[in-house]
């Protein structure tokens, strides 16, 4: 897009709509021209404000650097289990881990195979910002898909993920260049294969193993809620990619109610709800219930009756939480989404379908428009899923970092 001349600069007649295909344009233009605008601020005033902010930003950076330098850097494995009688986990209480990834394992967090698991934590003691990130990964909905889901997540998996080039050092989590490099990050692994939301006993689960994602998620979120203030957290982004993004939709309410004096932003990546007929399939919705015992918030059933339309989740969240901000990231080439939503497209007995690529792009356009109408900020990536974990090759002003910057209102 090239820089364009100001068509209003000289004469109103010069303001055409460059080939717009209807006759609304001149009327809108005339209404704009006839509106009394406020006098522009003197350029010196603008510059003075800009200089002042630059100075403040420099000072803030110096302060953060000094705090980081003075912190302990033990770098050792930290195993903490601070569960109290309410079973909330203080996942931010990782000692000596400033700006380095640490593995925190808890007896009460359980993988799909029944072994204990934990969370990956990268603290920045100087930051008031927390990214609570539910990680993506394969789902365990039936025998075939369960066979592909790693049944556990252990310290060894964590170590691989935090090694150079590992999944937790990529994209927006990159410690050098990622958008969240200066934030405290808590990354919850996909250890249960149930969108972090399953609530079924072993007898009901597809492969005879209980789905306990909901219990894990509840403990983590409760812990963050309870202990965030103590750790100086003022802003929280509750985010997830792929299967982890569904967690955000469902779990946002629990966080929001308790964080009334903390800025909480919901961010879902690669998990959209289009209004496209047939998506998600009834087959998939049935499996959600049968395999994982997924449910909807009570406020949902108070508000909506009739056939289930998950695309209402956008307006549901903005109307339930009008003071909060929400962001949606969609991906045109989302293999996870196409596979998940394609389950049972032809018949439920043959679930391994994918939504055709063209239909998927259309469905994402539709989801974006629906979310935008509901007041969400939307970023559409022309590429693969799990956008937050990818290095997007983009230098446009609408690149992911700029978009996130505006979403977070991350201004000095």
């Amino acid at each position, binding site marked *: 897009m090239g820089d364009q001349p100001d068509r209003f600069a000289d004469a109103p007649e010069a303001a055409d709509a460059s080939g717009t295909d209807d006759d609304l344009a001149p009327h809108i233009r005339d209404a*704009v021209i006839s509106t009394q605008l406020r006098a522009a601020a003197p350029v010196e005033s603008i510059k003075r404000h800009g200089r002042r902010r630059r100075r403040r930003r420099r000072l803030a950076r110096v302060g953060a650097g000094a705090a980081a330098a003075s912190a302990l850097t033990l770098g050792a494995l930290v195993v903490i289990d601070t569960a109290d009688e309410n079973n909330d986990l203080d996942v931010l209480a990782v000692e000596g881990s400033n700006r380095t990834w640490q593995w925190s394992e808890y007896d009460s967090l359980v993988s799909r195979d029944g072994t204990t698991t934990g969370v990956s934590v990268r603290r920045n003691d100087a930051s008031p910002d927390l990214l609570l990130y539910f990680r993506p990964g394969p789902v365990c909905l039936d025998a075939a898909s369960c066979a592909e889901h790693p049944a556990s997540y252990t310290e060894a998996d964590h170590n691989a993920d935090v090694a150079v080039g590992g999944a937790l050092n990529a994209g927006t989590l990159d410690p050098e260049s990622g958008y969240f490099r200066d934030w405290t990050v808590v990354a919850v692994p996909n250890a249960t294969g149930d969108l972090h939301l399953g609530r079924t006993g072993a007898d009901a689960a597809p492969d005879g193993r209980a789905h306990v994602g909901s219990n894990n998620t509840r403990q983590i979120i409760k812990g963050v809620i309870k202990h965030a203030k103590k750790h100086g957290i003022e802003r929280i982004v509750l985010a997830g990619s792929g299967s982890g993004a569904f967690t955000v939709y469902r779990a946002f309410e629990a966080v929001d109610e308790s964080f009334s004096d903390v800025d909480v932003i919901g961010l879902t990546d690669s998990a959209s709800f289009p209004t496209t007929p047939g998506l998600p399939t009834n087959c998939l919705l049935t499996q959600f219930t049968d395999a994982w015992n997924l449910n909807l918030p009570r406020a949902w059933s108070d508000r909506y009756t009739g056939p289930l339309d998950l695309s209402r989740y956008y307006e549901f969240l903005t109307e339930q939480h009008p003071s909060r901000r929400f962001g949606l990231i969609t991906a045109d080439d989302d293999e996870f989404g196409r596979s998940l939503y394609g389950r049972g497209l032809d018949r439920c007995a043959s679930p391994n379908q994918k939504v055709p690529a063209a239909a998927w792009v259309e469905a994402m356009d539709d989801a974006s428009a629906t979310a935008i109408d509901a007041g969400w900020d939307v970023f559409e990536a022309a590429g693969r899923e799990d956008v937050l974990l990818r290095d997007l090759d983009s230098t446009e002003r609408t690149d992911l970092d700029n978009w996130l910057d505006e979403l977070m209102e991350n201004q000095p």
Partner: protein
Amino acid sequence: MDDGFDEWYRRERPRVERIVLVACGGDPDVAADASDEAMVRAYERWRRVRAMDNPHGWVTAVALNVARRKFRRRSHERRVLDVASRTETDVAADPDVDGSVTLWRAIAALPRRSREVIALRYVDGLTEDQVAASLGIAVGTVSSILSRARRELRRELEPHESDQLSS
């Protein structure tokens, strides 16, 4: 030292303000505040902004984001009602001979992103492709939003349509 900011500011500030004016549903205060804020941010990062392919696009995107938050904070619904009641008063005092009061009311009632698309398409004169790039959304989404917005505006403007839209 002349780094080009002054001239750019004088050229861009009114242009951005008019785009935001439509995007925020006709509130001149929000438009002016958002434009000023965007210009401060541009100056703050002027070396980087100046080197961009399209500084105008950047500052417009920033202004729209700022306006969005200002609008949201002051309560979108109340704002829309304010605009509506103000225009009702205006209607009583001064007949809406050119349909602009009705038009502002109709624009204010559109969803936020629809107003932004309308502003970039009709005020800034961007193509649908350019609007999509500017807002970071797909062309198909822009077309879909534009189509809905046109339908809404035409419905609201119905009483004026024969006088205003067929000229």
